[in-house]
């Protein structure tokens, strides 16, 4: 027994049960083998990882394939990524701002400005205000979502993470004009029901097709997205409003006294002021002198004689008008069209220049120099995106009234201006001796894009959506309902009423299950560079 025992007890054996302590029982191979297997797995994984990074296209650690726009960079991570930091905006800008005129179109601040609806925010100030709070481009435009993913297709989640709207259908606020009951600032005097009725009866052979009546004046642009601005010559003057009026009221002629009066054609020709070239081509027979008073017949749209006299009155009332003096109509509500106003002013100045350049008189040459400098300023302002434009740049306001006038004199002048423009006021508002500029861009939605073309197939009938003013009921309804509706219709049938659908109309189709209802369906936060005017609008604001 002792021998046998001795034989069996070898190094490291343990007790009577003769367990091999170190290998078999206490520290069996299986424990090591598990670790070894794990280590093997790790080595394979690491090898694959390194091979992927250095030899292949790093697709292993990427979230997914790049979008097709960026697909060329797939094998070169450093095109977008830098070590130990998020994707840097500068790397984005190195390509994108090159084509964006380096104006910061693609900055984060831009999205506060562009179509933010806040008419006071400008890019430069937004850049300053949101400095340091900028989100990197990749926050809203993550890539690696697959080849077919659109990088511009910002997910709602991205928007909602800052803008507290649950979703379009849940929390989207009512359109601002409707919520705040903002009037249309087109500054025209117009009745839709009456005009539609006349168009149907007189121009469309007593048709009852109201859509045709709409399209009679509202002509779509070639892309079908929007409608062309209403144009007097094309639409109003089309055998209805031409001439505008048979004659003016009888107006007192300027006699050198303090009393307000008009200059006759003669007087204007004699004076030869800037922009009066028209006087030489005007038929003198249109004027009828009536013992110190004059009547013009007929009255045309933008009648130069009336506008020239109105300008003279205005210059007395408001001596420092600056650029406003160069406009046919002034721009109190016209902030958004400032670029157009500038363009018009420049155009006017250029006309003046051409007119004066042929004249040798020294005082004319001095005037010419003044116009040149003005032209320069205006052009500079128009082109420089960072130039601050005074809000009141085109305003004739109480601030620059002529201090030399008494209250009576002022009232007389204002009253006379009213008489002078009596025919204009059928459609236009006249304030401070100037005709208020008509806003030709009829687009109302400031924050969103709307495309008519995308909607006409589903809703071909204009009044399906534009139903604030009860045009259809008043024209085609039975007599009882017409009578009952009349007071309301009369009250709202004006140009001030925005005959735009409310957001509930949108909800009818734009739901999660049917038409797209994402944020980017309507909202684009960076301006479209290809549309120059649009772009300038952005920069200018």
């Amino acid at each position, binding site marked *: 027994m002792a021998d046998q025992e001795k034989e069996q007890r070898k190094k490291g054996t343990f007790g009577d*049960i003769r*367990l091999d302590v170190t290998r*078999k*029982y206490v520290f*069996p191979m*299986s*424990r090591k083998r*598990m*670790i070894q*297997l*794990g*280590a*093997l*797995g*790790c080595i394979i*994984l*690491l090898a694959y*990882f390194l091979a992927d990074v250095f030899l292949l296209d790093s*697709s*292993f*650690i*990427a*979230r*997914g394939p790049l979008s097709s726009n960026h697909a060329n960079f797939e094998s070169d*991570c450093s095109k977008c*990524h830098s*070590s*130990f930091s*998020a*994707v840097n905006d500068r790397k984005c800008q190195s390509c994108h701002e090159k084509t964006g005129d380096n104006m910061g179109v693609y900055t984060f601040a831009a999205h506060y400005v562009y179509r933010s609806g806040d008419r006071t925010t400008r890019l430069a100030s937004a850049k300053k205000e949101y400095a340091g709070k900028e989100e990197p481009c990749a926050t809203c435009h*993550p890539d*690696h*979502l697959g080849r077919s993913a659109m990088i511009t297709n910002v997910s709602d*989640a*991205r928007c*909602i*993470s800052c803008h507290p709207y649950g979703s379009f259908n849940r929390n989207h606020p009512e359109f601002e004009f409707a919520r705040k009951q903002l009037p249309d600032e087109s500054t025209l005097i117009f009745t839709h029901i009456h005009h539609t009725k006349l168009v149907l009866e007189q121009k469309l052979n007593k048709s009852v097709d109201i859509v045709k009546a709409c399209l009679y004046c509202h002509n779509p642009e070639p892309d079908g997205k929007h409608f062309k601005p209403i144009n007097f010559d094309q639409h109003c003057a089309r055998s209805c409003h031409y001439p505008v009026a048979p004659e003016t009221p009888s107006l007192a002629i300027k006699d050198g006294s303090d009393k307000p009066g008009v200059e006759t054609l003669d007087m204007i020709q004699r004076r030869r002021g800037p922009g009066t070239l028209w006087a030489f081509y005007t038929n003198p027979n249109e004027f009828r002198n009536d013992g110190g008073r004059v009547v013009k017949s007929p009255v045309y749209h933008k009648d130069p004689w009336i506008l020239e006299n109105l300008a003279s009155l205005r210059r007395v009332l408001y001596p420092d008008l600056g650029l406003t003096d160069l406009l046919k109509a002034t721009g109190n509500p016209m902030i958004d069209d400032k670029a157009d106003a500038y363009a018009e002013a420049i155009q006017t100045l250029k006309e003046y220049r051409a007119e004066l350049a042929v004249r040798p008189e020294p005082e004319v040459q001095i005037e010419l120099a003044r116009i040149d400098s003005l032209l320069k300023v205006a052009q500079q302002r128009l082109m420089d995106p960072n130039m601050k434009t005074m809000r009141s740049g085109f305003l004739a306001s109480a601030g620059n009234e002529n201090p030399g006038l008494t209250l009576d004199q002022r009232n007389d002048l204002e009253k006379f201006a009213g008489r002078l423009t009596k025919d204009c006021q059928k459609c236009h508002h006249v304030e401070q001796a100037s005709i208020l500029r008509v806003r030709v861009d009829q687009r109302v939605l400031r924050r969103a894009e709307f495309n008519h073309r995308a909607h006409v197939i589903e809703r071909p009938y204009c009044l399906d959506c534009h139903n604030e003013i009860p045009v259809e009921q008043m024209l085609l309804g039975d007599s009882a309902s017409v009578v009952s509706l009349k007071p309301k219709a009369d009250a709202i049938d004006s140009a001030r009423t925005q005959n735009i659908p409310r957001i509930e109309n949108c909800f009818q189709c734009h739901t999660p299950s049917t038409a797209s209802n994402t944020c980017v369906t309507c909202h684009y936060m960076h301006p479209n560079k290809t549309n120059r005017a649009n772009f300038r609008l952005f920069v200018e604001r």
Partner: protein
Amino acid sequence: MLPIKSINISRRSRSPEWFQAFVLSVVICLLAYGINAFFFEINAGNWWGLTYGILASLLMVGAAFYGIRRRKPGLNIGKSQTWVLFHIYGGTMFMLLVFMHSGFHFPAGALNWWLWGLSLWVTISGLFGVALQQWLPKILTSGLSVEAVYERIPELIAQIRTRAEKLIETCTDPVQEFYRKNIAVALAAPQPKLIYYLDITGGIQSRTRQFEYLRRVLSADEQEKLDRLESMFKTKLELDAHYTLQKALRLWLYTHVPLSIVLLLLVALHLYAVWYY
């Protein structure tokens, strides 16, 4: 003794406090996630998702420490049971936090898919192991009278065989014949069988019936020897049951441990990728 004194000792293997804490943590996490998801968007990239992700990786590293505690008991870092409870509950929490980290979405990208899949696999295999550990010891204990150390089972069976052969030498031909034909094969080596999972006794009743018929034709002396042989045979069957189930208790670790090591590396790569890019 029992009727007289009452001693304050209790089974430590139950840990209701841990379970309660676990349930509480799950509720808190889901609540936090719910509140969170109501106000913010959660994905792996933003701060909320990142917080969940960091918590998850911390939990995973903490759970991995159990492996170190097991392999280096000499480090003396607390009770093993504390670690294993943390391992189990913390590991399950880890998976929950991984789900929360990804906002309960499927991941994007190969690495993330691997991470997600491996996390799920490691968690599920771990829970499978917990189930095995709950189930197998109970049937081992309730169904078998023998207790054996797994590593020694082949040796113990060899001992039984030696003794059986010694016994058989003294027996008459019928018994020797019977042994050679019916029993020797069974005593040759451990024979793991799936049947032991369903019936821990491995059908011992039917397997020992073969002894009955033979017993009738034997003398009293031989019968006694046959009885001894039968009892050895029964012991061997019990050892087989031990071998089968204890093997399962060891082998499941292969589904869990190696891949969890790979998972650790994947998490490290993930952290690197997130940090670097």
